[in-house]
């Protein structure tokens, strides 16, 4: 570190008029003086305070959107999530999922037992208000197995799990009209002497269904 020139030191100590200094020392004096003034100057607020002030000046978002749209935005906004896992629970969860996949999740609808099968009833009854199936599988009781026509095309459907074997049945349309199933393919005289025929359904056990 080079020693400072005594004349410059005197000028900085206000013991000499800086105007009397030679040109090079006068420039050095000016730089020293500027640096001194800068160091003397205390920042009016800290950096942190200025940053916080800047943040406060950001205008809050104006919620001109509806709550549903705001919820969608909130849901779609990326967020940092911290997940802490215990290996034992993670392994148990994986084992559970594997078991579900291996055992095959049931695909919905009725599930027949070994000595049961699934019967599909379909009938075309345009304009009908109700269609139900009544037969030996439900003791010929009304109101237990209704067909549906959700799309209103006049084709009524129902699916039921029934005991394997032979069942006689009929459709009851609008609560009063007894009609054999035109798609049954098998019919048997009902034995009451009026020549009316029951439909005949043979339910295959689920183990024998193709």
């Amino acid at each position: 570190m080079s020693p400072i020139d005594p004349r410059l030191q005197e000028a900085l100590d206000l013991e000499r008029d800086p105007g009397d200094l030679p040109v090079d020392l006068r420039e050095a004096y000016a730089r020293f003086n500027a640096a001194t003034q800068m160091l003397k100057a205390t920042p009016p607020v800290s950096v942190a305070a200025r940053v916080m002030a800047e943040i406060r000046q950001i205008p809050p978002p104006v919620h001109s959107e509806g709550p549903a749209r705001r919820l969608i935005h909130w849901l779609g906004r990326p967020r940092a999530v911290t997940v802490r896992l215990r290996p034992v629970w993670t392994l148990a969860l994986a084992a559970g999922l594997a078991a579900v996949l291996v055992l095959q999740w049931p695909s919905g609808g009725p599930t027949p037992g070994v000595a049961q099968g699934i019967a599909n009833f379909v009938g075309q009854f345009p304009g009908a208000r109700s269609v139900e199936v009544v037969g030996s599988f439900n003791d010929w009781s009304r109101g237990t197995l209704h067909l549906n026509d959700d799309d209103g095309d006049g084709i009524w459907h129902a699916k039921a799990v029934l005991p394997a074997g032979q069942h006689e049945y009929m459709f009851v349309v609008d609560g009063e009209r007894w009609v054999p199933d035109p798609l049954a393919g098998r019919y048997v005289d009902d034995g009451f002497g009026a020549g009316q025929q029951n439909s005949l359904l043979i339910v295959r056990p689920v183990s024998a269904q193709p």
Partner: protein
Amino acid sequence: MSWKLVLALALVARPAPLIAQNGNGGGTTRLNGRVPAAALPAIDSILAAAAAESLPTEPLVQKALEGGAKNIPADRLVNGVRRGLLQLRQARAIVSHAVPGQSPPEGHVAAVAAALARGLSGPIVERLITVAPDEPPGPALHAAADLVAHHFDPDSAADLLVEAHNKGLRGVRLLDVAVAADHELQRPGGRTPSEALAHVRAMLPNVRPGRP
């Protein structure tokens, strides 16, 4: 609470059985309110006769329930149930003749009665039972009845089913034989019933599984 107590509570709280047992299998209990009151005494005596002869009563109860649901007049309803009893008697005689020395299982008798109701003749039924006396006869009888309903010769239909059985087809697979024969009959080109049966016989035992 111990498991024994839980089991005891479950047994006590379980729903009452649908059929309250009595002399005729609880039939009349199930019929109360479901058939005309005027028909009940006659039906009761029919059910009692069936039970006394060790015939299955359930087909008769079903026939009575069916008649009640259809609002069949009492006299016709009773006649319908009585006709069912006669078919069960005939069926039991056929089974006893086909498989002598054995007490005919109720299931066999009911299946044979159903086949008779579908129009199969006694000799055809007896022949099919004789082929497989220890197997439930329902599928073979329905397959034969299906073929006869589609105008195949009854004896030829029985021949085909016996051959299918001899080639290993059992149970509801015999129904597929009847379906295959019907498909062959409806195939474009105009096969006669005997040609259709011959074609299926040549395929045996490889008939495609089909709709029951």
